[in-house]
């Protein structure tokens, strides 16, 4: 299942990475993400995620972060995306 969430969060150091880290760690793979300045207060992060887990659970997990002010869960759509692939190890390093 695909979920889209709009997350309003503080512009404090670490807020974005904390929210993104939580999303993946709680079992939602990230399809797309954009971060922009919110009018007046903090930032807005728009994410689209895929998971077998319910989107409202992710919403509540995000809401307990101190940096997060508000989460809006958009209606779910059925995913056409493939599960995330494995990237071959680059020999550049």
């Amino acid at each position, binding site marked *: 299942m695909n979920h889209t969430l709009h997350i309003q969060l503080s512009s404090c150091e670490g807020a974005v990475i904390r929210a993104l880290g939580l999303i993946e760690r709680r079992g939602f793979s990230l399809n797309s993400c954009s971060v922009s300045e919110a009018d007046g207060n903090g930032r807005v992060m728009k994410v689209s995620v895929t998971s077998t887990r319910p989107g409202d659970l992710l919403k509540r997990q995000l*809401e*307990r972060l101190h940096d997060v002010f508000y989460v809006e869960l958009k209606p779910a759509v059925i995913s056409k995306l493939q599960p995330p692939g494995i990237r071959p190890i680059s020999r550049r390093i």
Partner: protein
Amino acid sequence: MNPSTHIAPALRSGSQILIEALERNGVKQIFGYPGGTIMPVYDALVGSGLRHYLCRHEQGAALAADAYGRVTRKAGVCMATSGPGATNLVTGIANAFMDSVPMVVITGQVPTALQGTDAFQEVDIFGITLPIVKHSYIVRSVADIPRIVNEAFQLAQGGRPGPVLIDFPKDISTGMSAVVDIAPAAPLEARLPDATALETASKMLSQARRPLVIAGGGIAISDSVEVFRQFAARTGVPVTATLKGLGVMPTDAACFVGMLGMHGNGAANHAVQNCDLLMVVGARFDDRATGHLAQFAPSARIIHLDIDAAEISKLRKADVGIVSELAPALEGIRPERKANPGWCAQCAGWKKEFAWRYDAPVEGIYAPKLLRDMSQAHPEGLTITCDVGQHQMWVAQHCEFDHPLDHISSGGLGTMGYGLPAAIGAKIAKPEATVVCVSGDGSIMMNIQELATLKRYGIDVKILLFDNSALGLVRQWQELFFDGNYSEVDLSDNPDFSAVASAFGIQSKSISKPEEVSDAIEWLFNTDAAALLHVSIDPMDNVWPLVPPGKPNHKMMRSNPVKGR
């Protein structure tokens, strides 16, 4: 204010401001270990009102702060230097996170200008700990310190408690500011239950034929033990407890069926599998408690009470979720009648049928019996801290607790090495308590250096060390589920633990025969300082019952089918 008498606030260093902010937040004791980047803070510590306990490993400091936080229900504080000092704290932070323990962690950091350059002892502890903190800060301005410290305590202690990290760069600790102090923040506002949900829950309880309550760690965390007991008495609903819920009810209370889960009591597991309504109070459906989740409490409707909205329907769908402080929720749930007497009688029957027995055919010292006898010989109550392994499960099964905070056990993380530092933290938090650390020969070695902390500060902790010459719990799993293919679990070349204790200046005694037990236990409790009793037991002893991995809770093994014990 009359401008002529206005005195500009004095300039103070960041370290001074930090220490004073800690004091204003009620901190009296702190656990830590110094080093390069935290040196300015250690400098400001001298002459302050804080008592610092030097542990001998940062992990010991973090775990001691964790236990201190559990017992006092106020944030335990630990601090360490950047780099290896900070990474050594990580296990303790995770331990506090998993068990919802209030903790404030202060780490030194390289100066701001050097961050991101791989400076000496630079690690991104903020990044490393992101998934295991409730919140964290990197201090960017000296003037922010009073606000950040206040917030850290408010967050660590409020709602569902947890660890909060403050990363403190060296230029901030030495920088000067005229910032004025601010009063500690008020506790977070209590969240109250939704009236409709309470009504629905009351109705469901009234209608249930076979209701059961799971009492979790949240009850003690929210200081709701008394209210919970009143609820249980008023409704008559049978109660089971998670590892962290043990102590909410006296073991011999008629409606209490014991601990559920992998090493739970048969009565609890049968009750939970047969109930038609399960009210879960401050617990989170951990896999060690539920067994195979899909088959857990298969015919039960669920009422879930928790302060954390994200726990509701995380693992098992709740028919009613009540997100609230537990006490007002428990007070507000009022079924029309008491629980069905036939069901209560059935639970009482199971309790009798599955009562622990102490007549196992063992030749040596039988740890469960020793623990039961020790516990019963101290009706005034002991505070027992545990390490992790078979001995930890035996404590949960066979010791009796007047209150959940008398049982300090690493539940969520299962941290070997927790017991000794936890005993230090618990004894400092509650000097009048008799504190016993029950440990294993594997676990004790994980933080053995803290014997030096016991000695230095004269902390009177009794250590009961069960030595089965093995990583017993792992050995048991290899015996049962890996065809006895023992891999790296043998500890038969253990050091002489009595001699180790003596070398640290801790009195000690070793026993191996059943007839030595009662004198040795008496000796342990009559010593007037820290002491270690080393008890050799049979390496092949197992913890029973056991719900095999992937099985539902009522499919308990009660012995090894091959050898019969």
